[in-house]
């Protein structure tokens, strides 16, 4: 396999610079999760006495931030194709595998930065009190989860070539993945059908791992969460590399 660290860094650097050059995108993408945390968390929380619902959904909201920003980073290849930059990438003496890895890590970096902002706000609001080790491990979990979702985005961008399809992807895949997970509801209180869907949903494992690390309230073994994340990440990344190798301008 032809992988070049300097060129991976180049693709990564582009993603990060695009992100830091666009202040409105940062603010815009944080608004929705904060609204969920404050309004939904506060509102529903008041219906459940004796249970800190806001603290419960904090890992779910971090997961949501990662999920939507990461998929957006992955499918941004569609925009690159539409706006021409993909030609510059594909015409360079750089292997497709290098481009995919750089893109996945770049997308993960910008997404995890936003997830971290939510986590730190949560800590400041007193919704979470992780240990230093838990905090650092949480970052690693975020990176694994986010790289997985960016890879899913790259897979879609390699197959679909029209921007219009992206809206379909969000409505038919991303919202179901978010709502049919353990992000907003405790697994043990779910009806059986929802529990089954949530258990089959890779998003649940990322959120459960974060929940274990942030406020010790995970419901599945941490090792299982990490194992599932590692396996789906490896499969998604390989598949993304394979499909992107076949993509054309």
């Amino acid at each position, binding site marked *: 396999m032809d992988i070049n660290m300097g060129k991976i860094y180049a693709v990564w650097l582009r993603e990060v610079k695009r992100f830091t*050059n666009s202040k409105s995108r940062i603010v815009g993408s944080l608004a929705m999760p904060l609204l969920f945390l404050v309004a939904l968390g506060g509102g529903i929380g008041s219906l459940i006495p004796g249970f800190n619902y806001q603290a419960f959904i904090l890992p779910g909201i971090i997961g949501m931030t990662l999920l939507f920003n990461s998929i957006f980073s992955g499918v941004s290849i569609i925009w690159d194709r539409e706006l021409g930059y993909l030609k*510059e990438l594909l015409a360079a003496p750089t292997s497709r595998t290098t481009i995919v890895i750089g893109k996945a890590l770049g997308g993960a970096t910008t997404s995890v930065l936003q997830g971290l902002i939510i986590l730190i706000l949560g800590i400041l609001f007193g919704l979470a009190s992780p240990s230093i080790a838990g905090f650092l491990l949480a970052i690693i979990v975020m990176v694994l989860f986010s790289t997985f979702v960016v890879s899913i985005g790259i897979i879609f961008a390699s197959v679909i070539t029209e921007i219009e399809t992206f809206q379909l992807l969000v409505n038919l895949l991303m919202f179901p993945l978010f709502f049919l997970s353990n992000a907003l509801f405790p697994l043990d209180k779910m009806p059986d059908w929802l529990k089954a869907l949530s258990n089959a949903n890779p998003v649940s494992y990322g959120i459960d791992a974060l929940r274990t690390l942030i406020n010790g309230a995970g419901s599945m073994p941490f090792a299982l969460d990490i194992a599932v994340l590692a396996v789906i990440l490896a499969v998604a990344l390989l598949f993304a590399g394979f499909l992107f190798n076949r993509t054309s301008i």
Partner: protein
Amino acid sequence: MNAIEVLALTKKFGDFTAVDGISFSVAEGEIFGFLGPNGAGKSTSAYMLTTILKPTSGTAKINGFDISHDPEKVRKSIGIVFQDQTLDSRLSAYDNLDIHGRLYDMPAPDRKKKIREVLGLVELLEWEKKLVKTFSGGMRRRLEIARGLLHTPKIIFLDEPTLGLDAHTRRHIWTYIQKLKQQGITIVLSTHYLEEADALCDRIAIIDHGKIIALDTPSNLKKMLGGQVLSLKSADNRKILELVNKKKLGANARVIADAVSFEVKNGSEAIPGIASAMEKAGIKLESIELHVPSLEDVFIQLTGKQIREEGNGQSDFKRRLVMHGH
């Protein structure tokens, strides 16, 4: 050694043959022009030579490297300026170049030095920190040219480098291209602007329907026409056409864009005789125009059409569909 050797290069998209067995070579330091209407196969040829598209059959050697067997070496030795814009508009001019340099494995000191050098060449040095989205069309083209030159390629491919630019900016870019030639860089220029090909190219390949139909220096191409061209216009052009053919007033008479054009040996001396012949035949002329051969006339002669015909947009659209379908 020739910079480029092309042998029977062919690209098919399903049933549609975009490039049909073209062969030619380009000498080192030459400006070689590809002239043809939109959809003639210029861009597809350039994509194959720059290893972005794989040929259906045929081969080419770029700087001695085979496009099918050694694509990475080909890529490293060439620069490309695409027809449509391929900059990242959310990055600064400097960052667009910096990331390009990293993708081409340029070490940091060399990269920094060359970025300043190419930005200076296209006069964008004072704009280096500005985001590209704030740039005008002309500035973007200049930055694309700078980027194509950054890694010191031996050959640069310019695909319609002045498309959609105003006359002033176009001339500006022509002077950059001439500067490159002075540095000994081989240039492959695709264009559908005849005056551009005429002004810049050492040799021109005229391409239509995926085939090279003529390849020579601009002056030799113009000599092919033999004479000067007269264009006569009246309410009924068919009568003019009949008379020209019947009385052998000129050669190769045909109706092009509302006028009858034909070749004569010496236009200014032929005009009085032709005008009176028309009058005798009862044809009321609206205008007589004489022009000495241009590349446009050569193009019309060879293809039977003008290079800038209407409906280009549509044929472009059709090509896009074909490309997406495969």
